[in-house]
Each structure stands twice: as structure tokens, then as C-alpha cells.
């Protein structure tokens, strides 16, 4: 018995591996069948975007270390930022005033997110936890904070799907998790990635049951939040996927990677339809976001620049210079009027 069992187990494993290879081959074949043209060739007849009038408007100074994450308030005016210095700051982006500052008992707050009501923020990082703060006075914020969930490694990203009642998190423990804010209960966990989860984003158009994740396993997964299962998986990147973002139409996702490229994956064609790269770009991409029409793709790089890409033509339109260190996060404001960028140079900039 003890002699035959390992062989059986090995046989079983190798037949499963063989089946997986066949399935992958078939999947690629099916995808290839419908790959009749390229996006850039269809977009060829479109006029080029000749000029984009985006200027540096505000510099938000106050952090004492790297800015790691920012999020626009639903009011389109305030920005929350989190930093390596262990502080959360809420800014009035119109005036550049700091309205609130909270010090957490951890450094490297890698993620922060406004609740849909604008009354709470969720954040966390190297403490492995997601903590919720009500936005009131600074003293009250510290007293009324609540730990909602805990991962077994750092929390890299968080987002509120639909309401103030739930938080979705991604972690260095290679899972994502959906938490109930009130009870702190784990509602659903999402297993599938074989590397650290670096970024998540919510599908914009549906009933909030689909999200995308990007990971150091070089993959982007589309998940069904109710079943906890992977619906689609996209590969192509040669290194860590640091950022994922849904196209405003909800039918595609953009990714940014350490391989110094951004990519566009169409969900209905179930494949990559564009790559945004240049030979002269050799630094990694930390963060991507779309303008409200989805025509512009903003990407923040390790070479201190923000690149603007034409989503359709896969051409670079221009660069935004200003930051003096790596650009860690880029985000278009909810009404699409401005772009915020956070950097390891300790500042956040607003472009409009």
C-alpha cells in the first residue's frame, strides 16, 4: 500500500497537469480564432490626439515620507493620502489645505479608500489589517477607528464595493477578501493567485459583483464576488502586475507592470488587444487610470514621469513632468476634471 500510493498520486498529478496544458492550449486557440484585427489598425483612421491641455495645478505638501496611495473623495474636491510615514492626510485639493491628519501605529500605509458616502476611510498596509476611520475631528478619528479585517501578510489595496458596509482587500498573502464592516466577518475569500496581490478594481457598470485583481504572479484575474471564483484570467506581462483598472465602459481592463508596459485586455474578446510600451521606456509602471471617456490612459512610472497614452492607437501623447521620485499612484477624479498623482518625493500633485 505504502509503495503503490505515491505512484498513484504521481500519476494523478501528472494526468491533471497534462489536462491543464490541453485546456490552456484549447483556450488560446479559441481566443486566437476571434482575433481578426488589431485595435490600433481599426483606430488608424481616427484623428490623432494632437494636444492635451493638462497642466500642473496644485502641489500637496505635508507627508514626511513616500506617498503610497491616494483616493479622491466622492465630493470631487477632497483627497486622502497614505504614506510610509504612517500618516493619513485628508486634503482640500482646491485650496491645498490639510483638513485632517491621523497617525497610525504602523508605517507603510499602502492603501487607502473613501467610502461611497464620503464619511469613512479604510486603510492599511504593513500592519496586515484594514482599519476604518470615521471622518470627524482628528481626536475622534483616532478614538473611533475600527479594525475590520486581518490578512496573514501586508494589505496592498482596498476598495469599497457598493456601500459603506463592505470592504474588499488584496494582500501579500496572495488572496483577496471581502469583509463586513460592522461585524468584521470575512464574507468571501478569493484564492487563485500564486503571488502577492498588488491591486484591485471594481467593475463600473454592473451591480458590483465583478472585480479585477493584479498580482506578482504576472496575471490579472476577473472574479465573481458572489461565488469567489475566477471568471477570466489574463496573462502577457513579463513581470509583477502593479496596477489594474477597469475601462469606464466596463468591457476592458488596463494593467501596469514592472515589465515597463501597460496593456489593455478586452473581456468580451477574452484577450489582450493593446500594449503600451516604447523601447525608450525601461522603468516599471506603478499605477494606471483612464480618463472618463476611456480614451486617455494615464500611467505613473518609476522614472518619475506620468505618461499619457492614446488607448485606441497605443501611442504616447505626452509626458507629465514634475515629480522628483517614483510616481506611486495616479487617479482621475470622479467627474474626470483632474488627475492626482502621488510620489515617493513626499508630494501629491493635481493636474487639470
Amino acid at each position, binding site marked *: 500500500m505504502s509503495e503503490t500510493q505515491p505512484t498513484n498520486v504521481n500519476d494523478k498529478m501528472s494526468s491533471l*497537469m497534462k*489536462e*491543464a496544458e490541453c485546456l490552456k492550449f484549447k483556450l488560446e486557440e479559441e481566443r486566437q480564432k476571434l482575433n481578426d484585427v488589431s485595435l490600433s489598425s481599426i483606430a488608424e483612421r481616427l484623428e490623432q490626439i494632437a494636444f492635451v491641455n493638462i497642466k500642473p495645478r496644485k502641489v500637496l505638501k505635508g507627508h514626511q515620507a513616500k506617498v503610497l496611495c491616494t483616493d479622491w473623495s466622492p465630493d470631487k474636491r477632497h483627497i486622502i493620502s497614505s504614506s510610509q510615514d504612517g500618516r493619513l492626510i485628508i486634503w482640500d485639493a482646491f485650496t491645498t489645505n490639510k483638513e485632517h491628519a491621523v497617525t497610525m501605529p504602523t508605517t507603510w500605509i499602502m492603501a487607502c479608500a473613501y467610502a461611497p458616502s464620503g464619511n469613512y476611510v479604510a486603510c492599511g498596509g504593513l500592519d496586515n489589517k484594514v482599519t476604518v476611520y470615521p471622518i470627524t475631528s482628528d481626536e475622534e478619528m483616532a478614538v473611533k477607528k475600527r479594525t475590520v479585517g486581518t490578512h496573514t501578510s501586508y494589505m496592498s489595496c482596498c476598495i469599497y464595493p457598493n456601500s459603506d458596509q463592505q470592504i474588499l482587500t488584496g494582500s501579500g498573502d496572495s488572496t483577496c477578501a471581502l469583509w463586513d464592516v460592522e461585524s468584521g466577518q470575512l464574507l468571501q475569500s478569493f484564492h487563485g493567485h500564486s503571488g502577492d496581490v498588488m491591486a484591485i478594481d471594481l467593475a463600473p457598470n454592473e451591480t458590483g459583483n465583478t472585480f479585477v485583481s493584479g498580482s506578482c504572479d504576472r496575471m490579472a484575474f476577473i472574479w465573481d464576488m458572489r461565488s469567489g471564483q475566477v*471568471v477570466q484570467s489574463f496573462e502577457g506581462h513579463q513581470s509583477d502586475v502593479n496596477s489594474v483598472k477597469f*475601462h469606464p*465602459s466596463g468591457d476592458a481592463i488596463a494593467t501596469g507592470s514592472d515589465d515597463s508596459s501597460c496593456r489593455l485586455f*478586452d473581456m468580451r*474578446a477574452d484577450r489582450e488587444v493593446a500594449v503600451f510600451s516604447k523601447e525608450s521606456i525601461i522603468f516599471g509602471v506603478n499605477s494606471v487610470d483612464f480618463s472618463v471617456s476611456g480614451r486617455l490612459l494615464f500611467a505613473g512610472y518609476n522614472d518619475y514621469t506620468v505618461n499619457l497614452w492614446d488607448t485606441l492607437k497605443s501611442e504616447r501623447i505626452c509626458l507629465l513632468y514634475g515629480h522628483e521620485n517614483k510616481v506611486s499612484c495616479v487617479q482621475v477624479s470622479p467627474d*474626470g*476634471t483632474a488627475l492626482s498623482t502621488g510620489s515617493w518625493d513626499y508630494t501629491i500633485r493635481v493636474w487639470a
Partner: protein
Amino acid sequence: MMAANIQQQRIINEQLRREAEIPRIRVSETCRIMMKYMADHANDDCLLNGFPSQNLNPFREKSSCSVL
């Protein structure tokens, strides 16, 4: 350990089987739909087209005029 690996591989295979069965659309068609979406929403895209008037830009520097 080995049993856990087999269980893990089973889950991966199930996922691949599910993925193989999803309906797909031609790239030419999805791209046309995407282009239409962008064209339909271009007018709302201030980062793409700018503001109709700079006065509407809430982030512009206020001109330094004083209240009389």
C-alpha cells in the same frame, strides 16, 4: 502535501474548463463598441478636451483681483 497539490491542480483545471466555455466576440466588434463608447463620452472628458472655459476649471489659479 501531495494531496494538497492535487486538490490545488483540480481547482486550476476547473477554472480553465470554465474559462474555455465562456462566450467570446470578435476583436473587430469589441473594438468598434469600445470606440463608440469613447466617442459618446468624449464631450464629458475634460482631461481629453479641456474645459469649455478656464473659469469652469476648479483647480485653476485664481486670478489675483481684490474685492472692491
